[in-house]
């Protein structure tokens, strides 16, 4: 007797399929490549790498000069490991050649321009040809299917459109799959909830922090998320803490995945989470060659070890970027996944080599603070970090939001909670923080990228 069929288009169906290990119930957009043997994936990568390097050398003066200077020619690329002979590309290169210095085609072959949100500096502008747009939308179609999105779903966009790649990237990819787009854009949370109800929205695209905000506003309005047509949350634009995602899934009764990408190499679509390995994301390896390096030395780290992710988009026409240094720290695994895919998986990026804070000589990552707070029931997953100089010493201040049900009339128990949080943070970070308890809802919810750190020390 066979088990009853699982319908992933029913609310809760995708999570149930994953929990029962029945991944055949979940769709795969392009099994020919997503489930191909490793040798086949690598053969595709090598052929495309050779073409990409030749293309960059021929068409982009910056790369020709750089490769000539290093004494490397396109013909030197004979194996995938030969990628190490090529120069790295840093964000600074894209900024210094602003706006079109790295473009490999005339502007009349460009169909769309985008720019980075400039979280860490001046924007970077990128251009896409028709073929680039085609690859981009396909990469997105793949990752939205990992969450159980199917043709016919109605997807509501809560990212802002504009120059940011997230909005249009997901828009095109979802349309490519055969979904109806509802381009609501960011802001006006109550209207979002109204639209979900009125239009029967099944998929929500948002940053995780904004999804949480929509959830909370809906609860306050008395909206019944369990009865809502909404089934899937697609998150991006900022790292998604596991605790936050689990809470959104529980309170909104949806399945949520997040994906990874960056404007400089394409935008969203570089990798996406499947429901088998919720802490990892499958890389679209036929379009991106990955390396993991030691950020200090630039040398590769061992198989499966943590380091900085370096990406070379394969076959990108508008801007061919070689060995882009993401500054994102991760580890990549190549064993086949329970979901059926053979594409390599990267651990979700929880920290960047450049968002590390050095506090009184100790390295501290905001993601460590997030992990500790996620494990404390009395506070919400929202937090804010302030670093300042106090009497010549670095001071780390962690603001965390009290859950209403954790409040008691006793100042002593509030102080004990504050002490407990400080103690837990100290044992993980090896730095004693100052903990501030904040009222429920007192930490600002971001609509775009959540800004968790305010470093007030003089640079």
């Amino acid at each position, binding site marked *: 007797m066979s088990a009853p069929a699982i319908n992933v288009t029913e609310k809760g169906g995708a999570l149930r399929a994953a929990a029962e290990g029945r991944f055949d119930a979940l769709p795969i957009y392009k099994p020919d490549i997503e489930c191909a043997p490793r040798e086949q994936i690598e053969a595709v990568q090598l052929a495309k790498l050779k073409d990409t390097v030749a293309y960059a050398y021929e068409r982009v003066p910056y790369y020709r000069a750089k490769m000539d200077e290093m004494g490397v020619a396109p013909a030197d690329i004979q194996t995938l490991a030969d990628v190490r002979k090529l120069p790295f590309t840093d964000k600074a290169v894209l900024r210094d050649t602003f706006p079109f210095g790295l473009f490999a085609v005339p502007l009349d072959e460009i169909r769309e321009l985008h720019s980075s949100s400039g979280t860490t500096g001046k924007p970077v502008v990128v251009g896409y040809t028709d073929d680039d747009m085609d690859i981009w939308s396909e990469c997105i179609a793949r990752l939205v299917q990992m969450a159980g999105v199917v043709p016919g779903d109605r997807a509501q966009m809560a990212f802002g459109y504009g120059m940011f790649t997230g909005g249009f990237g997901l828009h095109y990819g979802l349309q490519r799959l055969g979904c109806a787009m509802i381009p609501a854009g960011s802001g006006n949370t109550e209207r979002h909830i109204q639209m979900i109800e009125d239009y029967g929205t099944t998929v929500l695209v948002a940053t995780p922090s904004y999804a949480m905000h929509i959830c*909370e506003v809906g609860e306050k309005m008395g909206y019944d998320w369990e009865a809502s047509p909404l089934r899937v949350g697609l998150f991006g634009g900022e790292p998604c803490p596991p605790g936050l995602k689990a809470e959104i899934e529980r309170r909104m009764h949806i399945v949520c995945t997040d994906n990874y990408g960056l404007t400089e190499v394409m935008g969203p679509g570089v990798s996406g989470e499947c429901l088998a390995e919720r802490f990892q994301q499958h890389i679209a390896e036929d379009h991106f060659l990955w390396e993991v390096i030691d950020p200090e030395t630039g040398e590769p780290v061992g198989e499966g070890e943590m380091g900085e992710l370096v990406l070379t988009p394969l076959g990108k026409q508008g801007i061919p970027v070689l060995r882009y240094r993401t500054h994102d720290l991760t580890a990549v695994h190549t064993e086949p996944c329970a979901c059926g895919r053979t594409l390599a998986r990267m651990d979700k990026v929880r920290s960047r080599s450049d968002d590390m804070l050095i506090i009184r000589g100790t390295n501290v990552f905001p993601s460590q603070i997030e992990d500790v707070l996620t494990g404390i029931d009395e506070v919400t997953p929202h937090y804010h970090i302030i670093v300042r100089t106090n009497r010549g010493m670095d001071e780390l201040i962690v603001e965390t939001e*009290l859950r209403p049900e954790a409040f008691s009339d006793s100042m002593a128990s*509030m102080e004990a909670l504050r002490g407990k949080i400080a103690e837990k943070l100290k044992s993980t970070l090896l730095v004693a923080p100052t903990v501030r308890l904040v*009222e429920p809802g007192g930490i600002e919810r971001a609509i775009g990228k959540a800004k968790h750190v305010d470093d007030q020390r003089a640079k």
Partner: protein
Amino acid sequence: MTVSQISVFANSKPGHMGRVLDLFEAAGVSVRGFSAADTGEYGILRFVVDKPEAALAALQEAGCACVITPVLCLKLEDTPGELSRVMGVLARCDINVVYSYSMISTYIVLSTTDTKRAFELLSGEPVVMISQDDIARFVADRSEKEAVK
């Protein structure tokens, strides 16, 4: 006999107590007495109000961290030594007063480590303990008197 006190967690910043008071106003809740204790970063606002359940509902609706706590409310004679006498009764039985504040001149609120036992002890002493209804009556009487004037 206890009085229902509303406690609210609030950050120690301008306007935060005002927000709580605005919620009370919108819910038609009158404050009869209050105290605000702080640690520098945050504080606990404590209120004795005419409609504790309505006050709690309004705060919860707004997402505030709040609880309702039973406290004792005593009406003291306005003579020297009265406060000391009451505190002495509790101290001799090892009941600690965690916090206390004065409500309406000689009406004081007490929160102790053992409210039930404190109530029993004080019931046997010459001290008037008042209920939520007494507060309402007191306010009503006073307005009546003022109206007569």
